[in-house]
């Protein structure tokens, strides 16, 4: 572990990279589409609408999640949709073809039938006209002789007979209708129809117009309406204008019901629908099966990869056959094998190293103990020595102390590095720990002239934690705060909320420069090289504290502003193994100069506070500690010049736009913006170059 990477180490292997709280779905493509569109509620309008959208969205969310995560579902659904489309298209084409074919045949047969019928009607009229005159002459003696008599020849019965004889040939295959030429009651004729057909309703008006205007036959499609309540049905109608025995024209229509054709068509439809349904269902099933064949090994690989990453290195895929899947499995197994070997090697190495460290410690400690005891004895007896020797004895004892603590810290950190640190968590009340720590730090504080106050200890703050480690962390923080507090008060704040507990140690000393918030956790890092040695300390305290926090699954984070003091916050999950989602205490204290300035400027930017309470967890990347911010920062920098360029990638510091919004370069003296007026009254006495930018760091697991 080098340099800055002490901050924000990756999450424990095996768990997914943390996602930003409050935002589900890491998939940047489709996920954003859904979320940005329907799911995220792109509707910014009325609250009612938004409520409705939420109500609609809620039951859909699991489905959407399943959709996003299940490739099998996607493939099957797509197959179903596409095959449905194909089947529909095919069905329409086939039905259209069949319909045309059926109609063609029907039309041909009907036309020949109707043409024959028209000829018969004409023939009968001619015959009747010929014989009617003669018959009339013999039958009804007086009337037939003159022209009028012939004209008024009774065609009522004749026409009914004609319709009957024409329709009786059809036996239900068609119906015959006569209509007078012109309107319905033209010439005193009544319409006639066989088979209960309603003549005027069944023959379309435009066909009638055509027939009455010309003497050629014409056809059309219509719907036969029946008088006796029978259901109407589609039909082909062919009509022609024919003369009756008296030479008066009338319209003769043949109506061919398309019942059979419709039945055939519906049979075809039914067949196609059934077949289509089967095809769609079967295709779906086939797709499901096929995808399953592919997906099952993939899922198995995923599961085994997960188990591998969880540390069960002996897991292997089952490989059968020689296909691509088998090759995948083989490659996978080979990879796992290599991984296992490598990890084995590493583990061996690590074990060796631990062993070495342990041995070294023993070997080193035993003589050190002797030396220490000897030095103590000498130190006890220094009053009997000459001043030079006495001073030497004092130095010897002091430096032995330092050597000892350095050695202890080194060993501790090497234990962390070797992964040998074990957590012994049990429920503890952090107030006890804090009181102990504060009590322990009291002499130092007294010496420094500062007071350590505890805030938020009215209620128990219980968490599952390793008391020894937590105490070590807090002792470190409190001692640091007292030492850098410049005699001002140190506030230790406790809080618990939402599955997390936090202890924040706030001082009002020199604070931290931008970027330092990250670096404080680096090993052997010192804020002020010129000063540090005087206060002692090994330079490893915060590193160990960070490791301790991380061991708990907690966070240790630092915030500071130059001249405004700093705050270190330890956040621990209330129960071990529970991932942290936020901290009960904001990282940037309320009494930071920036916040106070904001409060003075107006309540407009309340969101800032909230943002701090929900620290963004780093993504999976190892190298840049805060990839999310790192990625956004340059973008922001290029777009909004309000951002301090010193907070660019690598600094790890949270980018905080300046409240004034003016552009400033590092090294430039503070502008005379309105922001400066709102700052704390205390001027930056030590003349730092960048006095007003608060630094903030997010530290954690």
């Amino acid at each position, binding site marked *: 572990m080098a340099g800055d990477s002490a901050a924000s180490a990756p999450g424990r292997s095996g768990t997914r990279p943390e996602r930003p709280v409050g935002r589900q779905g890491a998939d940047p493509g489709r996920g954003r589409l859904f979320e940005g569109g329907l799911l995220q509620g792109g509707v910014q309008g009325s609250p009612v609408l938004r409520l409705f959208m939420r109500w609609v969205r809620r039951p859909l969310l699991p489905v959407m999640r399943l959709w996003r995560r299940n490739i099998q579902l996607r493939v099957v659904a797509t197959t179903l949709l596409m095959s449905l489309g194909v089947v529909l298209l095919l069905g329409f084409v086939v039905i259209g073809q069949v319909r045309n074919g059926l109609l063609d045949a029907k039309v041909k047969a009907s036309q020949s039938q109707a043409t024959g019928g028209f000829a018969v009607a004409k023939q009968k009229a001619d015959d009747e006209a010929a014989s009617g005159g003669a*018959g*009339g002459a013999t*039958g*009804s003696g*007086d*009337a*037939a002789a003159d022209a*009028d*008599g012939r*004209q*008024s*020849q*009774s065609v*009522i*019965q*004749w026409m*009914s*007979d004609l*319709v*009957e004889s024409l*329709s*009786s040939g*059809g*036996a*239900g295959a068609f*119906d*015959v209708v006569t209509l007078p030429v012109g*309107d*319905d*009651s*033209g*010439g*005193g*004729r*009544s*319409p*006639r*129809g*066989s*088979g*209960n*057909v*309603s*003549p*005027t309703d069944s023959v379309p008006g435009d066909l009638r117009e055509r027939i009455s205007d010309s003497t050629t036959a014409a056809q059309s499609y219509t719907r036969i309406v029946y*008088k*006796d309540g029978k259901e109407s049905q589609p039909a082909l109608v062919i009509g022609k204008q024919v003369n009756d025995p008296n030479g008066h024209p009338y319209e003769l229509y043949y109506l061919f019901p398309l019942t059979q054709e419709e039945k055939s068509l519906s049979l075809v439809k039914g067949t196609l629908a059934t077949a289509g349904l089967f095809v769609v269902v079967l295709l779906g099933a086939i797709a499901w099966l096929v995808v399953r064949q592919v997906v099952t090994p993939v899922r198995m690989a995923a599961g085994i990869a997960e188990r591998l990453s969880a540390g069960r290195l002996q897991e292997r895929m089952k490989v059968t056959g020689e296909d691509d899947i088998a090759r995948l499995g083989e490659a996978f197994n080979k990879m796992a094998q290599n991984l296992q070997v490598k990890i084995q090697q590493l583990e061996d190495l690590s074990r060796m190293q631990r062993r070495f460290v342990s041995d070294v410690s023993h070997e080193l400690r035993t003589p050190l103990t002797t030396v220490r005891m000897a030095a103590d004895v000498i130190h006890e007896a220094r009053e009997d020595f000459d001043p030079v020797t006495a001073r030497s004895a004092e130095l010897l004892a002091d430096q032995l102390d330092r050597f000892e603590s350095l050695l202890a810290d080194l060993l501790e950190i090497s234990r962390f590095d070797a992964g040998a640190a074990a957590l012994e968590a049990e429920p503890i009340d952090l107030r006890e720990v804090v009181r102990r720590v504060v009590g322990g730090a009291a002499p130092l504080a007294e010496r420094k002239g500062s007071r350590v106050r505890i805030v938020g200890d009215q209620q128990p703050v219980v968490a599952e934690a390793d008391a020894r480690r937590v105490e070590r962390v807090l002792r470190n923080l409190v001692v640091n705060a007292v030492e850098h507090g410049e005699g001002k008060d140190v506030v230790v704040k406790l809080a618990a909320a939402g599955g997390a507990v936090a202890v924040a140690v706030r001082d009002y000393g020199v604070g931290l420069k931008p970027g330092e918030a990250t670096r404080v956790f680096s090993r052997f890092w010192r804020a002020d090289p010129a000063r540090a040695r005087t206060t002692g300390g090994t330079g490893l305290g915060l590193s160990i504290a960070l490791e301790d926090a991380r061991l708990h699954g907690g966070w240790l984070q630092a915030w500071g502003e130059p001249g405004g003091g700093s705050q270190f916050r330890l956040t621990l999950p209330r129960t071990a193994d529970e991932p942290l989602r936020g901290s009960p205490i904001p990282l940037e204290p309320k009494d930071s100069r920036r916040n106070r300035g904001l409060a003075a400027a107006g309540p407009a930017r309340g969101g800032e506070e909230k943002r701090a309470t929900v620290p963004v967890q780093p993504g999976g990347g190892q190298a840049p500690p805060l990839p999310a911010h790192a990625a956004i920062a340059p973008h922001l920098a290029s777009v909004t010049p309000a951002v301090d360029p010193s907070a660019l990638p690598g600094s790890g510091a949270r980018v905080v736009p300046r409240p004034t919004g003016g552009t400033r370069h590092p090294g430039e003296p503070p502008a005379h913006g309105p922001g400066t007026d709102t700052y704390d009254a205390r001027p930056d006495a030590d003349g730092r170059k960048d006095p007003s930018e608060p630094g903030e760091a997010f530290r954690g697991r």
Partner: protein
Amino acid sequence: MGVDREGGVRHRSGRAVVFAACGVVLLAGCASMPDSGDLRNVESTPRQDTGVRVFAMPPAEDAEPSEIMQGFLEALTSDDPQYDTARKYLTADAARVWRPERSATVLANGPSVVPDREPAGRETTGSLSYVLTGSRVATVDAQQAYAPADGPFRKKVHLTKDAKSGQWRIDSLPQGVVMGKTDFQRNYMSVNKYYFASGPTVGTTGQPVAVADPVFVRSKVDAMTQVVRSLLSGPTHWLGPVVRSSFPTGTALQKGVSGLTPDDRNTLTVPLNADASRVGQAKCTEMATQLLFTLRNLTPTLDSVELQGPGGRLLCELNEQDAESAAWQASAQRPQNLYFLDGKHRLVRLSTGDPTPATLPVPGPLGEGAKELQSVAVSRDEHTVAGVGADGRSLYVTSLASGGSLGDPVVSSQGARPEDRLTRPSWDAAGDLWVADRNPDAQKLYVLKQGAGKPVQVTLPSLPGRIQDVRVAADGVRVAIVVEKDGKQSLLIGRIENEGKPGESPSVLDLHSAAPDLEQVTAMSWAGDSRLLVVGVEQGGVHQMRYVQVDGSTIDGPAPAALSGVKAIAAAEDDRVPLVACSEDGIVRLPSGAQWQKVDKDGTAPVYPG
């Protein structure tokens, strides 16, 4: 492990093969036409009615007088229930007076419209006359009774032009409707109303005997309601004196009832007015019987009728079986045996239900060939047989039981020639035996009550010729007589009135022709409640067999298959029983749906009981 899995795979593949085989078998079953399967009922789809309908149209604006006439006549042939459309061609006064239901005149070729020559011009006076002419075929009176008619038809129709609207309308016209013969056949149908014979009852059971009274109703205008109304209004004039109706006087359908139709259970509910609700259960059953008999020849599927009084009260209910026990109907009786004389003049019989008939000797003296016979008649209960000797001189009545003796002749004829002597005897349902003596000097019709006792002479009206054949109907109130004059025969139907007083002889009244178009009638037999089967010759035609209705109307439907040289025929009232004829080929019979079959080469005189 490897072995285990191997076995598992083999096991599984075996099962897969079995499944596949099952699937193939199933699919093969679906892919071929079935040759076995469940029993299912066949839904009866009524044959589509191809009948022609005329749709009456109201007169057009400014229609010509000739168009008014044409439209009016067309409207008369339409299905318009109350002729409302036809009335639109009339002036208001004429429409009020015109009674289309009064009569229907059937013309051979429909009415021809001839302008009546009047001295006045048409347009100027707004008045015009037309004459409807044609040759009359028949008339249907207000009681819907059909009567054949002939002669020319000529009726005047007068049109006026309405002063206000300027439209031509008919203001004077004959009552009733007029139409052509085929239109009449299309629009009207013959229905038998049933009443009970007022005199005779069935000898053994005492059941009343149902008598058919044919009427014509408009077939497409709520026929069932029409028939019910007609039935309730009583028998036709001709039949009236000899039948009774069980409906109390004044019985009618409740007001506003129309469109009677059987429900899903094939039950017809007939709501009657208060006059019908005061009858007893027995009377009510008779009423229902009349209704059921009547309506069953309109709707054969009808199973039962329910009579309802006012307020929906159920008077009585009657189903088919009840009706058959409540009254005796000839067409519901199925004769068990056909009787005829074999080559050795013995009376033999054969079962009608037997598809491969075998002749059986009849017990009794006639079956033993004790007497050579010319013709026989078996009583309807098949206990007694009457036979006319070979010379036609004497009539014997004897039992069909074995061991009886022939006895003495009960009637004897003194006719000179064999054809001047006794006719073939016939029995009615009451058990009376009827026989005529053809002696031209003393032409007589005898009836023997219960086939025994002293023959009673029946009073006959003056006949248009010599009696040639006599058949009494099963109901005993109608008789069919074939009369010959100048080598031409005609079929007459008469009513038998029995005054009921002891000693008073019955009489035959009101003879009318049942087949006016036949010139010769060689044989005849009752073949239904109001139907006869006749072998005869039409004017200018050849010998043929056909059915005639007792009222003289022609019958729709096919005639029996042609047969030459028919000397005698026998038909039962039940039309499911095969026709039997005596022809050149001996005795032949015609089972329904088949051709003539030979029964006995040498047989003669086939008869069904009756």
